[in-house]
């Protein structure tokens, strides 16, 4: 029988109390990652020397009677697009094999380590974050711990798997269009995609500057909330906290189409428990189209020099998408950005009707690695480019979202995406706590 791994908060309390050392926690994380191997742990690099030195420093603070911080000795990993001093930030791409070493840690890493956490390694992702499967020609395919023959989802699949397997209680990841929400849903962990601009991006390799956010993956809701608090460095919340009972509403139309059979029943049951209130989110299809145009244009523009130099250095699916993106007229890109502003303004009114909206995080179970496809409008299409159909419109709108696993005895994890108005992350956490306490959502134990 599998036991629930310790939460980060409990780990830190034990380190501060002298019950376990930071070095022991880091060593356990390395042992577990090595035992699983790269494909099943989600890690691409283990930073043993750095982590053990950092952990020893945490232990010295404890021995001296000082407080190393709220994440004392907690091991964590990062998607391989956060700068780690002295390492190459690969962003999952062969094109960056010979890039310069990062001169300093990304700000998010620095803030977590200043709170006592210990970085233990970097994690796999789709090349430059352009995909929803974490099948990487250079760094391998990350396998879903609940069925190794299935994908983990992506683009930040390695970061989700590292948490789902219990190697680390927390991962720092990114979300452009669903990059952390899709794998959170498919591997059964909690994933926070904050409001655009909520968390610091300094030292994070960009993909689509007008959509990229730093996010957090964890097994414990309070851990994820704590990491957000630390990364915000005491910044005041943008919105006054909402009091009283939380009203939930299910988004229909675009978010109800293309749901697989395995998701439909559990989703309906979840909805019934929350009062069966539903809403339309008009123009979601246009939002998805606008997001796709923005990503193609910005991603291609960012990588134009490398595409000009040698397009064959890119993985085929990424190369094809980026070369196509280079050909987009600027007028279409601007139209997409204009639509983005317009729909964000309209959306503010949507949340006068319900505090928290929800959708599936992904259409159903994780697709198989051998045949990574899904059904969309009756057609079989690549999962690599479409698994984020329910996350993409939310990214364009810049809204915060929290993915939680549905509670139940399913063959594979099924994730729900909670969405609030911009700047209302505390409300999302309160809603998530309510759902967990009601037994509607639960993080499954790591598979044996």
């Amino acid at each position: 029988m599998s036991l629930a791994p310790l939460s980060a908060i409990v780990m830190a309390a034990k380190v501060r109390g002298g019950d376990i050392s930071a070095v022991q926690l880091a060593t356990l994380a390395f042992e577990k990652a090595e035992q699983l191997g790269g494909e099943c742990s989600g890690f691409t690099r283990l930073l043993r020397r750095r982590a053990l030195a950092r952990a020893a420093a945490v232990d010295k603070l404890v021995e001296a009677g000082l407080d190393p911080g709220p994440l004392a000795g907690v091991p964590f990993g990062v998607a391989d697009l956060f700068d780690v001093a002295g390492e190459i930030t690969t962003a999952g791409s062969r094109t960056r094999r010979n890039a310069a070493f990062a001169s300093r840690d990304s700000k998010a890493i620095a803030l977590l380590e200043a709170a006592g956490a210990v970085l233990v390694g970097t994690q796999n992702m789709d090349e430059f974050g352009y995909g929803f499967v974490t099948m990487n020609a250079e760094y391998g395919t990350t396998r879903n711990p609940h069925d190794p023959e299935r994908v983990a989802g992506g683009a930040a699949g390695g970061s989700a798997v590292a948490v789902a397997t219990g190697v680390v209680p927390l991962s720092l990841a990114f979300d452009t269009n669903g990059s952390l929400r899709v794998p959170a849903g498919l591997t059964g962990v909690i994933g926070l995609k904050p409001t655009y601009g909520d968390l610091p991006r300094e030292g994070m390799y960009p993909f689509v500057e007008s959509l990229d956010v730093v996010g957090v993956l964890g097994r414990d809701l309070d851990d994820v909330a704590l990491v957000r608090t630390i990364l915000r460095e005491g910044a005041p919340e943008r919105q006054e906290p909402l009091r009283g009972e939380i009203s939930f509403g299910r988004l229909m139309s675009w978010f109800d189409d293309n749901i697989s059979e395995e998701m439909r029943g559990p989703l309906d049951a979840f909805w019934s428990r929350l009062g069966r209130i539903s809403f339309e989110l008009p123009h979601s299809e246009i939002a998805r189209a606008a997001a796709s145009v923005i990503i193609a244009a910005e991603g291609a523009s960012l990588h134009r020099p490398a595409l000009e130099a040698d397009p064959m250095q890119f993985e085929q699916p990424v190369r094809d998408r980026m070369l196509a993106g280079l050909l987009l007229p600027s007028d279409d890109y601007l139209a997409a950005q204009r639509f983005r502003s317009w729909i964000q303004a309209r959306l503010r009114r949507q949340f006068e009707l319900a505090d928290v909206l929800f959708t599936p995080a992904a259409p159903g179970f994780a697709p198989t690695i051998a045949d990574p496809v899904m059904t969309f409008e009756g057609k079989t299409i690549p999962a690599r480019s479409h698994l984020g159909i329910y996350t993409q419109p939310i990214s364009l709108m810049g809204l915060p979202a929290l993915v939680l696993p549905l509670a139940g005895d399913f063959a594979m994890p099924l994730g729900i995406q909670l969405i609030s108005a911009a700047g209302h992350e505390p409300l999302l956490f309160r809603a998530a706590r309510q759902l967990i306490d009601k037994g509607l959502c639960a993080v499954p134990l790591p598979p044996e």
Partner: protein
Amino acid sequence: MLVAETSGKAAPPSEGSLRTRMAEAGVSAPEECLPGVLSNLIVLQDHVATLRAFALDPRSASAMRFEA
């Protein structure tokens, strides 16, 4: 020669037009890449058509705001 049939409706790209557009954009790729690029360009063109069908007055929203 293919031309736009009506305002806002673009002619579908072909491998021939793709070669020209890539050359004009200053990028080149081996011939075997063209079918993949073309299929992605067609998908993007579908997205663009979806966007263009929603006639948003350019003065009704800024295209240069980057916050939520």
